[in-house]
């Protein structure tokens, strides 16, 4: 079997049987990355020497395999997450020369568990986008069809996993930025409960919504990465002190039997025909495996998009005020006063979509508009949260398509921001409610493009979420990634 075909669990088996060494595996992934990345532009930085040196160190720690749950696993990290010594541009020109002075807690935990960082993934600038066309370093292409977008904002992280450049990657999800690209690239993507994973060392977009999560080839692999990095962190006061279960242990007894799956049919309007058909077939598969379906309603979710596009830009306009031409990276070279220096540095180095969201937030928070926009949106957010609380009294998980469409053609939605924002219609409410969601591949459309199925869980109940998603994978059957060499 080709090395690239192995999942994390199979790779760990091979390591424990001493049939492979981390340096061979990392070298092999770096080779694939070098071959495919010029076409896909999924990864912005590699550091072959550093990654191989780390892999060689791990070669000599073979006796510790049992204590290192991600021993020798090559991973890619979204470029808005800090890894000491590596760049962290967040896809923006304003951070083009930024070198991380420290490592984010989530990455530190993965590295301590034996993972090897082999690249920094391209993304929409400051994680704002649904197509990865808004990166200052060029668009990412979808490995299933390079004329199409990989989704966003963690498009590079999703494309890297789909193109077998790495075994898992980290993304960040503020309104769907892990799950939607996972869906469009045919991989698994998990957005944990808000507060489950530390945001220390993650460049902030909207602090009440941002959450880091894994992208991987299957639910077991994503669960392994997640269980290693989740949990309380003294550097992030929003992390929960709740114990993190060993999710991969719980998966051993996972079953679809008697799982009550909530389906909000009133929410399914506007879903593309083939996506809807595949979603319905997935529900039937779950029922055949013993799940029970119940109808639930989420009446306020139709307002989620408007709510999100007030709250997230408001938080972004505040968070991104720090990029001022003085503290970080880019500074305008035009001679100017202090105020002009701020305006010119930001004007010259921040991209179009980010400027739009900063201005939206500035407008919504400005004198005379605060009550009508920000406070109103927060009240509607309460209603959305209550809808989910009520729905979860009837079911243990919910199912919905991840995205209303499969991967769209590059440029197709560039002229109208609302058309682009609608790509996240099924993922945004989950961030507003702070609950976890996971996208799992569930089929393909006629063009052969992957379709994602999203499961939604209760606060801090990733165990049920992952068990259901894993059980679904078993009834769905094998899922193949796009063939190597096609890209």
């Amino acid at each position, binding site marked *: 079997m080709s090395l690239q075909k192995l999942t994390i669990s199979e790779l760990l088996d091979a390591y424990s049987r001493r049939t492979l060494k981390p340096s061979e595996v990392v070298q092999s992934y770096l080779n694939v990355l070098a071959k495919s990345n010029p076409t896909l532009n999924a990864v912005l930085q590699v550091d072959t020497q550093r990654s191989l040196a780390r892999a060689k160190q791990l070669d000599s720690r073979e006796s510790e395999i049992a204590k290192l749950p991600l021993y020798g696993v090559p991973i890619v990290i979204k470029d808005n997450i800090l890894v000491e010594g590596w760049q962290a541009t967040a896809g923006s020109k304003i951070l083009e020369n*930024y070198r991380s*002075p*420290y490592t984010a807690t989530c990455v530190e935990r993965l590295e301590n568990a034996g993972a090897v960082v082999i690249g920094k993934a391209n993304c929409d600038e400051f994680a704002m986008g649904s197509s990865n066309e808004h990166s200052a370093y060029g668009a990412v292409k979808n490995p299933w069809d390079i004329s199409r977008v990989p989704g966003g904002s963690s498009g590079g992280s999703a494309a890297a996993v789909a193109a077998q450049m790495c075994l898992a990657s980290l993304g960040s999800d503020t309104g769907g930025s892990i799950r939607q690209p996972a869906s469009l690239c045919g991989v698994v993507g998990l957005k944990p*409960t*808000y*507060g489950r994973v530390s945001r220390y060392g993650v460049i902030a977009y909207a602090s*009440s*919504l941002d959450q880091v999560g894994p992208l991987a080839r299957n639910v077991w692999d994503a669960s392994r990465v997640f269980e290693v990095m989740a949990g*309380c962190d*003294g550097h992030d*006061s*929003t992390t*929960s*002190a709740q114990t993190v279960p060993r999710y991969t242990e719980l998966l051993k007894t996972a079953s679809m039997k008697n799982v009550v799956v909530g389906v909000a049919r009133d929410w399914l309007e506007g879903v593309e025909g083939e996506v809807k058909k595949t979603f319905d077939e997935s529900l039937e598969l779950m029922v055949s495996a013993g799940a029970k379906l119940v109808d639930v309603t989420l009446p306020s979710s139709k*307002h989620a*998009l*408007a709510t999100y*596009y*007030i709250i997230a830009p408001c938080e972004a306009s505040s968070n991104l*005020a720090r990029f*001022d031409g*003085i*503290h*970080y*990276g880019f*500074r305008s070279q035009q001679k*100017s*006063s*202090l105020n*002009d*220096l701020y*305006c*010119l540095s*930001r*004007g*010259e180095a*921040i991209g*179009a979509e980010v*400027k*739009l969201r*900063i*201005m*939206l937030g*500035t*407008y919504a928070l*400005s004198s005379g508009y605060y009550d*009508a926009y920000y*406070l*109103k949106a*927060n*009240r*509607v*957010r*309460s*209603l959305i949260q209550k809808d989910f609380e009520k729905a979860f009294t009837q079911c243990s998980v919910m199912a919905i398509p991840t995205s209303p469409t499969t991967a769209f053609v590059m440029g197709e939605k560039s002229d109208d*921001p*609302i058309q682009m924002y609608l790509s996240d219609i099924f993922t945004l409410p989950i961030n*507003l*409610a702070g609950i976890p969601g996971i996208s799992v591949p569930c089929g393909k459309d006629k063009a052969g493009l992957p379709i994602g199925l999203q499961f939604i869980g209760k*606060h801090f109940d990733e165990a049920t979420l992952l068990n259901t998603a894993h059980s679904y994978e078993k009834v769905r059957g094998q899922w193949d990634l796009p063939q190597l060499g096609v890209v």
Partner: protein
Amino acid sequence: MISTEDVLRIASLARLSLTENEVVLYQKHLGRVLDYIKDLESVDTLGVGLATHVPTDSVAFREDKAVDSHLAAALIKLAPEHEAGHFIVPAVMDADQ
């Protein structure tokens, strides 16, 4: 639709210099999004509380102990212009002020 003056006022509050083409673009795009989010006006939120915090079951506290981060020197080196541990900025007031 919002006016050119509105776009320039918001850009100034947000400390963003815009080109003439950008002003035209944002007049269109800001107008489009602001029209869309008017949707919320129709939602009855009388008596509904604010969701200013996402519900987390517990808030973590660390021990109240001073910890050295040792990061200041590394952070300042990332600034475009710095000297002796300080950020360099243009004069805040002009000489004739």
